[in-house]
């Protein structure tokens, strides 16, 4: 057997995980991470392709074979620095990117067998650095004296801040919440992305000189024009898609119906799963229904299970093939005992005399002709009504553009859904000196796309600060 054939034969190194029956009742991280030996073994599977598919699948073009080679050579210190040159949040991306649709989806080994576990290796490199690294900061250009305001501390804002501080600009991040990190702290649960890791990333930026100002609701505490008056030369808007969508069906204001934003914010940002050690409560449902089937729905369902539910059901109007969540999350949810009611849509909520939710009425659906998204449109089956008993319902059917900032800002053009119009290549908006990117431009998307938009905007802002608009 040649070296290459041997590699093709070697099985993908599985990620060690907490057992489903244990983890479904705790908030500790589910995958526990590769050991050095596992990482090296997995890295050795990589064929070091001359024209690698994986890199094409990566929205920020991480040099994947490059960093994997360094891991295979046990040069972990260099491996992480190699990743940093294109991706400033590898500990996050390694955990939450939909690798199966990106890098791993295009890995040649995936054609016949299992692709290289690129996400696991990326996570390993970042975790190794956090645990064993020198903590040495990357080099920084001399100060330019230019000031940049970044609004929103999600992945796109953090990327802009990291890129521009390295180029010598003075960067301040303004965040509405009392803690920085965006969806990474308020949305994605501890068991998938430990908050200490996000805090570590933010702290890293602060050590580089980025100022982080929390409790600053831009549009209310301070306006964009006031930021310019205060002497900021450029502003980046990375405010995310923070507007919860509801079903608009009867009974939606009963007690026990929460948007996923509210439920997850209580659980993650406010740490309500520790109540009463912390002061913020969260409803503990016995029979829980989650509406929707994206990552947000999976996170809500798995959180409800961890809070002690007897049953947790995902109700989704399309079929399994259309579920938008990462494959790993769906798999983990099923292992933890979450049930799926597919091709089902709720029509109304049922409540008792105290205004509390007791159940919901649903309709069965069947798949019809493809719709605008190319997915087959679900159509209700007449007379298929049935009831589900539940005392807690989490609505995770998507989110929209929050108008708080955009409606109070002159000169910022929005599209018909309220998202900010920004140039795809540069992130420039219609307002001079203002850039935007991430979910507030694209609508709810992914961490890596938000970071990619941040990187492009940072390049454009740097050009502007050097040469003009």
């Amino acid at each position, binding site marked *: 057997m040649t070296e290459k054939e041997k590699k093709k034969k070697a099985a993908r190194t599985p990620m060690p995980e907490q057992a489903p029956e244990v983890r479904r009742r705790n908030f500790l991280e589910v995958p526990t991470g590769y050991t050095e030996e596992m990482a090296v073994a997995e890295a050795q599977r990589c064929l070091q392709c001359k024209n690698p598919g994986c890199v094409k699948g990566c929205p920020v073009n991480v040099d994947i074979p490059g960093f994997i080679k360094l891991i295979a050579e046990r040069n972990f210190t260099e491996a992480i620095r190699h990743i940093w040159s294109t991706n400033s949040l590898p500990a996050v991306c390694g955990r939450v990117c939909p690798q199966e649709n990106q890098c791993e989806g295009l890995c040649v080994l995936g054609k016949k067998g299992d692709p290289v576990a690129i996400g696991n290796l990326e996570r390993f490199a970042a975790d190794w650095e956090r645990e064993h690294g020198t903590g040495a900061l990357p080099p920084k250009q001399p100060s330019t004296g230019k000031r940049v305001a970044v609004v929103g501390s999600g992945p796109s804002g953090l990327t802009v801040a990291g890129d521009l501080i390295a180029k010598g600009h003075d960067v301040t991040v303004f965040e509405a919440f009392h803690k920085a990190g965006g969806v990474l702290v308020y949305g994605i649960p501890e068991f998938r992305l430990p908050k200490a890791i996000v805090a570590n990333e933010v702290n890293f930026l602060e050590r580089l000189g980025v100022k982080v100002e929390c409790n600053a*609701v831009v549009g209310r505490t*301070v306006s964009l024009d006031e930021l310019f008056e205060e002497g900021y030369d450029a502003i980046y808007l990375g405010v995310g898609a923070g507007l919860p969508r509801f079903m608009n069906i009867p009974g939606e204001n009963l007690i026990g119906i929460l948007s996923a934003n509210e439920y997850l*914010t209580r659980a993650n940002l406010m740490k309500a799963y520790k*109540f009463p050690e912390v*002061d913020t409560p969260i409803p503990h449902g016995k029979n829980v229904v989650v509406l929707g089937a994206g990552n947000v729905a999976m996170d809500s369902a798995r959180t409800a299970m961890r809070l002690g539910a007897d049953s947790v059901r995902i109700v989704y109007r399309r079929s399994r093939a259309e579920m938008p969540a990462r494959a790993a999350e769906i798999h983990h949810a099923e292992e933890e005992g979450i049930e799926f009611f597919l091709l089902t849509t709720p029509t109304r909520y049922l409540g008792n005399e105290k*205004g509390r939710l007791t159940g919901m009425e649903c309709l069965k659906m069947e798949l019809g002709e493809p719709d605008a998204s190319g997915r087959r449109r679900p159509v209700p089956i007449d007379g298929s009504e049935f009831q589900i008993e539940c005392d807690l319902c989490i609505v995770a059917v998507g989110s929209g553009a929050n108008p708080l900032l955009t409606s109070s800002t002159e000169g910022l053009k929005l599209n018909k859904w309220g998202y900010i119009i920004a140039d795809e290549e540069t992130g420039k908006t219609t307002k001079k000196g203002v850039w935007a990117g991430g979910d507030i431009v694209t609508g709810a998307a992914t961490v890596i796309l938000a970071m990619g938009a941040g990187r492009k905007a940072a390049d454009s802002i740097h050009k502007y600060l050097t040469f003009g608009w």
Partner: protein
Amino acid sequence: MFKIIRREEMSQGNVILNEIEAPKIAAKAKPGQFVILKANEEGERIPLTMADTDPAKGTITIIYMVVGKSTALFKSLKVGDGFQDVIGPLGKPTHIEKVGTVVCVGGGTGVAVLYPITRAMKQAGNRVVAIIGSRSKDLLIMEDMMRAASDELIVCTDDGSYGHHGFVTDQLKVVMEREKVDQAVCIGPVPMMKFCSKLTKEYDVPTLVSLNPIMVDGTGMCGGCRVTVGGQTKFGCVDGPEFDGHQVDYDELMMRLQAYCEDEKRCYERFRTLHAAG
């Protein structure tokens, strides 16, 4: 940290006033707007209206009734202590306009919320009649401030221990009977706002109320603060907190305020036990 520079107890220690250093918020705040405060790392985000602001000094003033764990925790903070987080100004400011005669009705700590609005209504050139009430004399707050902010102040107590004997609604009726009222502003416990609005509707007087649904972020991001107004769902924090009193579904609001009552009791009990133990 947002430092407390002044602290007063009112209403037998059930109502606390804190003047807090928050220059950015003080510079922007308008009557009717609120802040969200969090005392410490484990704390809950609690919405409270700004009863006063001093942009020159860079301070805001909050007045709150001690009703549960978080407000009891706030009460335990002394001058020189501070809140870890204060966020604002949030919510829409009150629409202040010269309309003629305005009646401002306040019940309980609603008077604190009402005070800056009353003052602004008078400054805008309105004739302002204020009616404030409480269960008994000891529980009445801000009488002098309200007197100074209005053209006429009517005080009432449920038990008759001070001022008129009876509810604020009785006095509201008296005023509407005796003169033409162009606008009413009613702020207090939900049932009080409900009955005031019912009454003003009979007299066809446009009425503003300030709602206090349970909130988390205060920026329109969670929807926990949903209220039904005119048959439509609104977010209290960004569409309000003030709404047309004749359109609000008060019964739903009262129900939703009970969402966490068991948990809240448990949390408050625990705090009292720990606090008593030192």
